[in-house]
């Protein structure tokens, strides 16, 4: 009963949060936006408590909102899987709303900001409803609602040419995703005859439905090669929206995939291998591209691709072990994937929010124009640091807690029977380890270039700490990162799952004890003299910012080592005055990073569809007689078809 009440409260509060700023859209007053964000926080709190109740007690909730036709209804079911994702949505949304309450006031756009608030609330509500959908029909409706809202949110700053390109790109990709999900659901409906999440057997139709759904969810989750929208859409949209899209929306796609895998399909081994390969490729390429990126938000976007790759790796391992009769290891992999989804939601939204604060303070997204912010924005830098430690999978924070679960299931692949397959899994393990080491390098570069050493632009040297609310939201997320890491083993026990995860709290205590003992010993034995002086600048009178190591310089060795992956194209055209090519006249030299996926996959597909559309559009000649002919032909065809059928 209390579950129903909480759900209705959350629903009503979110609707209020949508309607209040819409009704007052003509008035540019802060109070309405604050009320709207207050609604987000209260609604999220209600959803969070509801999710915790379901997770801890296991008592779910089923409820029909609206039934337009028999057999297709908008109904709600909250089981533990849904509750887990609901908790993720609620936690991130509440913290983001706290941040946005201050951030939105610094945005341009007058009363358009009210619309931003309303749309954000609708977006969060849509995501929550996708997760609690009881059938595929409701799932699809809310999925499309979520996609539409997120498109509007990306287009907030619609006047910028960059935003328009990003918006269109995102719109096409997200519609493509919906199209594939729709195809999958229709195929399933053809197979089972209902929209319910019921189990289907093994058949060709089921396999096709799985492929369609996998593509649909991969596009939304930013899995390579369907990832290209992320690095466009994230830099273009306002910071809280990037945080929500990266932290939460990608996880909704993961939820979709899991829901169908767990409740509908009976997966085959090769499905698992397919998901595993998609995951590993996204993880490795995602982080390699992130290292090359100097736009802070695009870098975080690529790192999101990497982390979704890690989640997909966990899911792939789950399917592999489940279908080779290893339920225990399969559970560990699945828990690893789920836990990483939660952890990534926490630290990625933390990183996006603090990165947004930095962009707000320095007015640039290029990390080469930042630097030295640790002295000017101490709190923001400390919060970003927690996020960086977590995302680099360093103990005792949460990123490590989930990656170790996936490592453990990789290490357990000894249990798989086929020897060649074992070797394959170990090779995947090597790539997986490469990913987490590269992400450490990537975030050393990010933190070092943004916060450490000397400011590299006048804006950066004038930067100031952001207001309290813009610290409070990220601070909550940072503490979640620490708690989820330190108490990972205890939390799993609390929800009644036993996993072979090391006791991170003990490790944390040991670390603290060692640091304290060292400090105490040095305090009594060592010299306490401290002198502060300039860095040695090789004899120059003072250190200039231009003399520091830049972000480009930092990642140069990795770029050279992985140069085959980056595919830079060098053009060198020269003209000479004489025939023997001695006297140089003019020339152009050009070093360009090739956008492989765009040039070899996206553009050909786009060109082909454009060509096909041009051919098809010839039917549409605007002449009434032709249309009558079409109708006539159609009627004849139907008569013939029915005649044969009868």
């Amino acid at each position, binding site marked *: 009963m209390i579950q129903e009440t909480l759900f209705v409260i959350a629903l009503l509060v979110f609707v209020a949060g949508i309607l209040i700023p819409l009704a007052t859209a003509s008035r540019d007053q802060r109070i309405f936006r604050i009320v709207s964000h207050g609604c987000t926080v209260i609604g999220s709190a209600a959803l969070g408590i509801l999710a915790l109740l379901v997770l801890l007690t296991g008592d779910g909730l089923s409820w029909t909102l609206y039934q337009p036709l028999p057999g297709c209804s908008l109904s709600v079911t909250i089981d533990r899987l849904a509750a887990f994702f609901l908790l993720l949505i609620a936690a991130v949304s509440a913290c983001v709303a706290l941040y946005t309450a201050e951030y939105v006031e610094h945005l341009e756009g007058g009363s358009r900001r009210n619309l931003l608030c309303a749309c954000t609330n609708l977006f969060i509500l849509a995501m929550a409803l996708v997760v609690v959908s009881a059938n595929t029909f409701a799932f699809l409706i809310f999925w499309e609602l979520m996609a539409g809202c997120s498109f509007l949110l990306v287009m907030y700053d619609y006047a910028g040419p960059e935003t328009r390109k990003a918006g269109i790109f995102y719109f096409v990709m997200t519609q493509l995703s919906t199209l594939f999900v729709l195809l999958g659901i229709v195929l399933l409906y053809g197979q089972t005859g209902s929209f319910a999440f019921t189990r289907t057997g093994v058949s060709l139709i089921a396999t096709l439905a799985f492929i369609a759904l996998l593509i649909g969810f991969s596009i939304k989750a930013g899995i390579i090669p369907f990832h290209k929208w992320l690095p466009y859409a994230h830099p273009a949209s306002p910071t809280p929206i990037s945080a929500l899209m990266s932290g939460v929306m990608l996880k909704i796609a993961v939820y979709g995939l899991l829901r169908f895998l767990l409740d509908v399909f009976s997966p085959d081994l090769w499905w698992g291998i397919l998901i595993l390969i998609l995951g590993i490729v996204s993880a490795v390429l995602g982080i390699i591209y992130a290292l090359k990126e100097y736009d802070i938000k695009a870098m975080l976007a690529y790192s999101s691709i990497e982390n979704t790759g890690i989640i997909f790796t966990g899911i792939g391992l789950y399917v592999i072990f489940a279908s080779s009769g290893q339920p225990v290891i399969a559970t560990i992999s699945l828990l690893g994937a789920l836990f990483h989804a939660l952890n990534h939601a926490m630290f990625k939204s933390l990183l996006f929010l603090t990165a947004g604060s930095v962009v707000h303070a320095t007015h640039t997204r290029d990390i080469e124009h930042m630097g030295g912010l640790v002295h000017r924005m101490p709190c923001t830098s400390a919060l970003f640091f927690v996020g960086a430690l977590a995302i680099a999978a360093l103990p005792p924070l949460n990123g490590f807690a989930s990656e170790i679960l996936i490592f453990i299931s990789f290490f357990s692949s000894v249990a798989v029977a086929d020897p060649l397959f074992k070797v394959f899994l170990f090779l995947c393990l*090597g790539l997986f380890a490469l990913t987490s080491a590269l992400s*450490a390098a990537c975030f050393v570069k990010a933190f070092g270039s943004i916060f450490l*050493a000397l400011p590299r632009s006048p804006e950066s040297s004038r930067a100031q700490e952001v207001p309290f609310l813009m610290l409070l939201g990220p601070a909550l997320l940072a503490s979640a990162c620490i708690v989820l890491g330190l108490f990972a*083993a205890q939390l799993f026990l609390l929800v009644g799952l036993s996993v072979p995860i*090391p006791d991170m709290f003990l490790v944390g205590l040991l*670390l603290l004890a060692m640091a304290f003992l060292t400090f105490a010993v040095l305090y009594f034995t*060592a*010299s306490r003299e401290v002198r502060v002086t300039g860095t040695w600048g090789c004899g120059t009178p003072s250190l200039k910012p231009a003399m520091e190591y830049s972000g480009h310089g930092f990642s140069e*060795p990795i770029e050279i*080592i992985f140069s085959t992956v980056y595919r830079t194209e060098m053009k060198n055209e020269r003209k000479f005055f004489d025939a023997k090519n001695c006297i140089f006249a003019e020339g152009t030299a050009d070093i360009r990073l090739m956008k492989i996926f765009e040039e070899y996959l996206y553009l050909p597909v786009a060109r082909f569809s454009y060509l096909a559309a041009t051919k098809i559009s010839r039917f549409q000649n605007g002449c009434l007689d032709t249309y009558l002919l079409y109708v006539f032909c159609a009627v004849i065809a139907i008569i013939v078809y029915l005649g044969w059928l009868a």
Partner: protein
Amino acid sequence: MSLSFIIYLVINTLVVLAIAPLFVSIIKKVKAWTQGRQGPSLFQTYFNLAKLVKKETIYSAHSSWIMRITPLVSIAAILVAALFVPLVFVPEPVGGIGNIILLLYLLALAKFFMALAGLDAGSSFGGMGSSREMSISAIIEPTTIIVFAALAFVFKTLNVFTMFSASVASGTTSTPTLILLAISLFIILIVETSRIPVDNPETHLELTMIHEGMILEQSGPNLALMELSSAVKLTLLMALLINLIVPFGLSTTLTLGALVLAIVLFALKGTILAGIIGLFESSMAKMRFFRLPSLFAMAFFFSTLIIIIEVFA
């Protein structure tokens, strides 16, 4: 947590702290001998540490709290990592202490802080060191994890304590997989402790230094902590190799006699291994930085070979 485990924590930390500078000295001594020099005293590393502790600490005006906490975090992480590798006495594992993946990531934690401290002062040498260190540690990672996976595969456990107990119990040293494992672990040891041919621990030349570049801005007691933590790291990786391949003498019961014997034997075995490292370092030149990936690729195929042998055996 039982009493014997707490005693283990104390003994292991004290032994590793006491013996680590000695191994560093031995390597230096061997390298000096091969070059026809007398070399510093075996206690020189202890003297250096004692001298640094008494010196003043100098911070750059541009540096932040990162510079100030890094020495503490680094030594704490590496000392905790050293707890994961029993040197002389193997107790029952408690709460996941000894997990081999966690061990690897504790070393990564220290490295992460060190790399940031290298960037903190704004000096280009520090940045160069950090950048190279992070690149090397990224590309050696697949090899390391495959070797560790092979260890887990051979010993059917993820816990270093259990591996050591198993190797003490069996006492075998001659299985081909273990020899291959030893070679791979040796390569990892050379890379992780910044030795020739990957890095040169002696030089302060900007073209070659990696690890030294990162800690160039450290001074006084902080530098002592950094030096000590890299010595401890060397010792713990050596211990991993020694106690897996030649485990005899490693104590599994907590008696004074067994402990003393274990300490003496470990010091002996460590001295021999340090001598081998010194000879190995003296026998080759430092590699060019961008030639390293091919060395690592070789190590990677080597460790994959172990897996393949194990799988098809």
